[in-house]
């Protein structure tokens, strides 16, 4: 399964701890510095596809203030996927710094 930026952020949010749907949206907003606000339809599409791919799984549910909270967590494959994707992004960032080195230095000066 190809991991999109939104998918990566969801995996990253679950890497810290199991979260329910609303919690994932909040964590993704924070991780992306306010740039990515997931809608519920988008979130559950991602969770469905990641569940089918074996990257996430439901880990329990509870009712809080009359609201059903179903928690999701990473599977072993999901943890491996988020680590690999992070490594890929790190390598990409490194290559990008190499390519843009002079300009980054110029922009930073």
């Amino acid at each position: 399964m190809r991991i999109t930026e939104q998918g990566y952020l969801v995996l990253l949010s679950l890497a810290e701890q199991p979260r329910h749907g609303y919690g994932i949206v909040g964590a993704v907003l924070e991780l992306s510095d306010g740039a990515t606000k997931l809608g519920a339809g988008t979130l559950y599409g991602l969770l469905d596809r990641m569940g089918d791919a074996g990257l996430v799984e439901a880990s329990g549910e509870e009712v809080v203030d009359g609201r059903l909270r179903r928690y999701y967590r990473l599977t072993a494959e999901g943890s491996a996927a988020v680590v690999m994707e992070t490594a890929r992004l790190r390598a990409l960032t490194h290559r990008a710094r190499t390519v843009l080195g002079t300009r980054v230095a110029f922009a930073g000066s």
Partner: protein
Amino acid sequence: MMTAGAESPAGNADTLAEAQIVESIEFWMRAYPRRWREARGQELVDVVVDLAGPGARRLDPRAAFDLVRGGWATRWREHPLPHNWLLYRMVDRRIPVAYRSWALDDIDGFWYPIRRFLGSAWPVFAMVLITSPSWGFGERPVWSLVMVALMVVSSMFIRPAGIRSQARLKHVAPRFGEVPVEGALVPGDVPRQRVTARSGLTWAGLVLGTTGAASVVAALLAPKVVLTKFQLNRPDMGPGFGWGSVVAPMGGHRVVAVAILLVALGFGALGAVAVRRRLGRLLGERLDQPYRALRPVTASGKAGILCSAMAMMGLIWLEVSGQIVFGLSVVPGTVALLLLPGALVARLVTRGADAHDLAGRDVWWIATRGRVPRIDPPARGLRPQPGPGPEGVLIQPHGPTDPPYRATP
């Protein structure tokens, strides 16, 4: 127990707002497949309510679009591949296991009988439309379209429950070699569905009354009738037996037609007296029905009744306007007027609270046979596996009491 906040005006306003936004979410959430909504709909609703924030009364357009897009993406993702879908739809080939839950949604959908009929009968429709000019419809091709439309609509009401039940057993039940897991739908005895007497008799009274009244109107107003004259040894045909038909004004035949309908109504009234007596005698003696589930007339049943009433109105209009000769409406009209008084009397008798567990079939049984209804046997259908199957046990191959097709390995 209500919270203090919920008792205050502000709390009541919040509760009202939440009810309104939940209604709005459930409307847009229809884009998701039915089984998805049943499994995760409540969770999704709660997340959307949280995202909308306190006091929100309806979804903003962006959130609504996101739900619709997510729902249709889910449908698209779970839809069978084109070749699987074509084989399933056109030749009723068993759907692959991966699409079993899609098939369950499809089979339980309101329009399934029409989808199935159109999928399997399209060659017939094509032939009708291609060959219709040679049937004399060439000048008015609209009639061939009307005929096709009637065939399609009628498919909704010809054994819809039986067709769905058979399709569930074929496409949804676990197959030979599968391990039965908890919650999987497996073949077994299920309660037999029966229509409640109150609901059934109300709708029966409606359709019988409409049909009877319409046939009387046709008998009173129709201008033309077809007369058939039988003759022995006709001069133009030589020795033998022949007959000829001629279209003529109704004239004195109107009295005969009305008399037939009134006589039917009279016999129906006599029958209603017997129905009342039998129901009064036998209703209290009926047996418990342990294998039965009562329900009102379904939405498709009501649609079928309304369609048949509209078809009768169309027939009456054709007869009254003189576009066809009077006659066809007499048959359903006579039957309706024979049955109508009994149906109305039965509806009155079964109004009481002691008839809440009475099925329409019980009333028909008592009225026509004068005996206590038999105990319904359970029906064959799908039911959830109550727990995990014994370890190592697989779904067995076809047995003598299984549905009438072989399980495919």
